[in-house]
């Protein structure tokens, strides 16, 4: 099965006389196998993938609730409600999408072993995520000032529930990214070992990929 192997076996003739001799103290510990059967995907990535599946189902439930009210109303948005800032939020969407590209660039940087570049790029990603949250918060304050609150109407409740939960997820991703950035500065990530960075990238990509769906549903549809 193995064409050219340098495996050493116990039944080799030159080793046969030595097998009967005992080593004092049991001898040296055995060598670990070089080609271990490594899984195709690490346990950490599989766990994050399961978590993202659960998050996707959570947002599917919220979107389902939104669809019931949206499709069941003859007029949408309902009359006498403040209009949503479509243009500013569209620009905000571009900022968040840019952060996904920078995160991807960061993963490529660690793949090439460029740790300093990775730190710089992670900082850019965190800054873009922070700008997104800041603009969202500013727009919400304006909407609350114009009378759109969680309890003002079903429209307001739906808006703040959907967009609010996404913002909480972005905040969580930002905190995770901050921890990853600190670890990167301390040199924890190498070309062959950067699972923490990979899993953070997976969650960040999920949060960024979810936003255009919510933007199209809530702001444009």
């Amino acid at each position, binding site marked *: 099965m*193995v*064409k*050219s*192997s*340098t*495996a*050493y*076996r*116990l039944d080799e003739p030159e*080793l046969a006389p*030595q*097998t009967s*001799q*005992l*080593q004092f103290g*049991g*001898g*040296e*510990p*055995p*060598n*670990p*196998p*070089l*080609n271990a059967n490594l899984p*195709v*995907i690490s346990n950490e990535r599989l766990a994050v*993938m*399961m978590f993202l*599946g659960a998050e*996707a*189902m959570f947002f*599917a*439930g919220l*979107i*389902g*609730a939104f*669809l*019931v*009210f*949206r*499709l*069941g*109303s*003859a007029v949408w948005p309902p009359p006498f409600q403040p209009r949503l800032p479509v243009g500013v939020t569209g620009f905000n969407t571009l900022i968040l999408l840019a952060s996904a590209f920078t995160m991807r660039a960061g993963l490529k940087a660690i793949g090439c072993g460029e740790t300093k570049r990775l730190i710089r790029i992670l900082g850019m990603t965190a800054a873009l995520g922070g700008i997104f949250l800041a603009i969202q918060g500013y727009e919400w304050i304006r909407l609350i000032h114009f009378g759109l609150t969680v309890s003002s109407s079903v429209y307001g409740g739906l808006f703040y529930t959907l967009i609010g939960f996404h913002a909480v997820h972005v905040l969580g991703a930002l905190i995770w990214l901050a921890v990853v950035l600190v670890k990167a500065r301390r040199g924890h990530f190498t070309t062959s070992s950067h699972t923490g960075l990979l899993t953070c990238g997976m969650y960040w990509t999920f949060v960024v990929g979810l936003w255009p769906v919510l933007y199209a549903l809530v702001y444009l549809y």
Partner: protein
Amino acid sequence: MNRRYSLTLIGFSAVLLAPAVATACAVCLTGGADGSVADAFNGSVLFLMAAPYLVVGAIVGWLVYAHRRAVAKRKQYTGPDVRLVWNHKETGR
């Protein structure tokens, strides 16, 4: 076994031949089946029915893709297969 099959057959027949008897949805029973609200509920339910298949399909699809990529990568490797077999400590190696 025959009793179970006959009960299943009766259940399917009731759904097809007498849907008013078999429906348990409150929206259908209250007569709002033609309204826009009922349509909205239908659409939402269809979306939520499809969501798990999409999510699980995406995860499984990615796993299959990752496995095939790993197999292709292993096939590309043509170097020697160096393995150190674990020997018992008392052999001295």
